[in-house]
């Protein structure tokens, strides 16, 4: 069940260039979370200067607290950055669906995270690790300054940077093509900026590889009321008049979709 809850900021610190992590005490919401892919949405600013909540993927859950990873993007995230421990922040959640692991059917999982899209991927990575389920993780960024994990190919963690300052030089695609070729039956789960998803989409479609995306979207409500956060589906629509066939609501139907179910 979704809840509205005011929670104390437990910590709020810089992870990498332009990227921050905030831990918020949210016992009610965290008790309702079903798994990686789901998100919460936070009010930002004082009063109604910024009326819309900011949707944030859950990056981890621990002892009644929820962690988010956010990138400084505009006024709302600057306001988030300025919160200090003990301040209260209002959240609604958990929202959306989770990655469905029962679709993987023993295939070899490759997780791909780009930019702030790394949040749900890290949550899934932690869950798979706890379950001793083998998987590979690729995290891409422009430079080393934007990376906060350790490049560790031996343990299956592959970082990429556009300038080669850490990990493999290139985009996540460079690494993904190598790894997808190495494993017998790859299954790709990714979250990141649209150009990254578009490149993966093209790759998986050409190779006939299955997988899931967690997509990002601008949202007004996160609860299905505003109908603002739609994504185009790949459904073949033969009827002249339809509702909710061509467009899917990212907040309620998503944010996790089978790669072949949406148009990127």
């Amino acid at each position, binding site marked *: 069940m979704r809840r509205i809850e005011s929670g104390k900021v437990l910590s709020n610190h810089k992870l990498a260039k332009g990227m921050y992590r905030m831990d918020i005490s949210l016992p009610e919401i965290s008790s309702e979370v079903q798994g990686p892919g789901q998100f919460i949405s936070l009010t930002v600013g004082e009063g*109604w200067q910024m009326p819309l909540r900011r949707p944030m993927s859950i990056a981890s859950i621990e002892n009644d607290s929820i962690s988010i990873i956010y990138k400084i993007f505009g006024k709302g995230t600057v306001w988030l950055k300025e919160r200090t421990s003990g301040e209260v922040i209002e959240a609604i959640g958990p929202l959306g669906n989770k990655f469905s692991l029962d679709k993987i059917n023993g295939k070899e999982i490759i997780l791909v995270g780009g930019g702030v899209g790394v949040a749900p991927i890290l949550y899934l990575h932690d869950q798979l690790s706890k379950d001793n389920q083998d998987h590979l993780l690729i995290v891409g960024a422009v430079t080393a300054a934007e990376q906060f994990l350790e490049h560790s190919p031996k343990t299956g963690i592959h970082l990429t940077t556009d300038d080669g300052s850490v990990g493999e030089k290139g985009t996540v695609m460079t690494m993904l093509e190598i790894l997808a070729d190495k494993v017998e039956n790859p299954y790709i789960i990714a979250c990141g900026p649209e150009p990254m998803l578009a490149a993966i989409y093209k790759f998986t479609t050409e190779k006939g590889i299955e997988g899931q995306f967690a997509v990002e979207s601008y949202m007004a*409500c996160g609860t299905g009321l505003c109908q603002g956060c*739609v994504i185009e589906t790949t459904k073949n629509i033969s009827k002249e008049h339809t509702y909710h066939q061509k467009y899917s609501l990212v907040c309620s139907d998503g944010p996790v979709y089978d790669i072949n179910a949406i148009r990127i």
Partner: protein
Amino acid sequence: MTDLNTTIGSIELKNPILVASGTFGYGEECDEFSDVNQLGGIITKSITLHPREGNPPPRIVETASGMLNSIGLANIGVDRYISDMLPKYDELDTTVIMNIAGSSLTEYINVLEAVEAVPNSLAGYEINISCPNVGEGGMEFGVDCDLTSQLTSELRQRTDKLLVIKLSPNVTNIAAIAQSAEAAGADAVSAINTVVGMSINPATRKSNVYTKLCGLSGPAVKPVGVAAVYKISQSVSIPVIGIGGITKGEDVAEYLLAGASAVQVGTANFRDPAAGLQILTEFHDFCDKNNISDLTELIGRLQNDT
């Protein structure tokens, strides 16, 4: 204790706070957050004759103290509204008003007639003649006195239920449109629908919303709404329902003083699906603190000496 009852046409509302069409779905999407039965009423999302997918994304963007939207009347269509939604409204203990949108006189009539043909517990209809976001969103009716009159009259002949005409602020003289609706038999008017707006990303030189022109709502438009309600209430004798940027109890009082008999909470529902009830509590406190025994002490009681 203040008596919060208010009357719109023949309908008595338990309190003056309704939720606006398009901001509360069909009334069931967020029922875990608040008990809709405590609200004065709900106006359900615009229904057209056929289902509609709505506009391509991006459909929304935040602006200073407001938001722009261009959803494009995405809705389930009247057949599914009748089969799936109407039976649920029988169970509710609050006033439910159906919002109807159309692209032609015939479409409005067909939707209303389809609903009139089945037994239901709707209190009435709010007619959207003011959607700025689709080429055929009824806006041509909302900007023209004669078309407003014709549409209102045709619908009036087909229902004895409450008939509310929802007006656009994007006109030269909103009071004149309200007068046309009144003369043609409307029981009430509601105002305002969204204000036409636009937002461009200077870096990409692209519009932030797919349709470019879209509708502004939220606290940014509250003064526009209050002024519209004031102008209309000075010109008609039917009740006015105030809409636009209501986020707190005092906003309700402001609209009532300007002449509204009830209000609709819109954009605030997006941030907090229980906003209507929170605003109701605050408004009740305001009334108690100010020793208001019933709402006639507020409605249209703007003091003229400034």
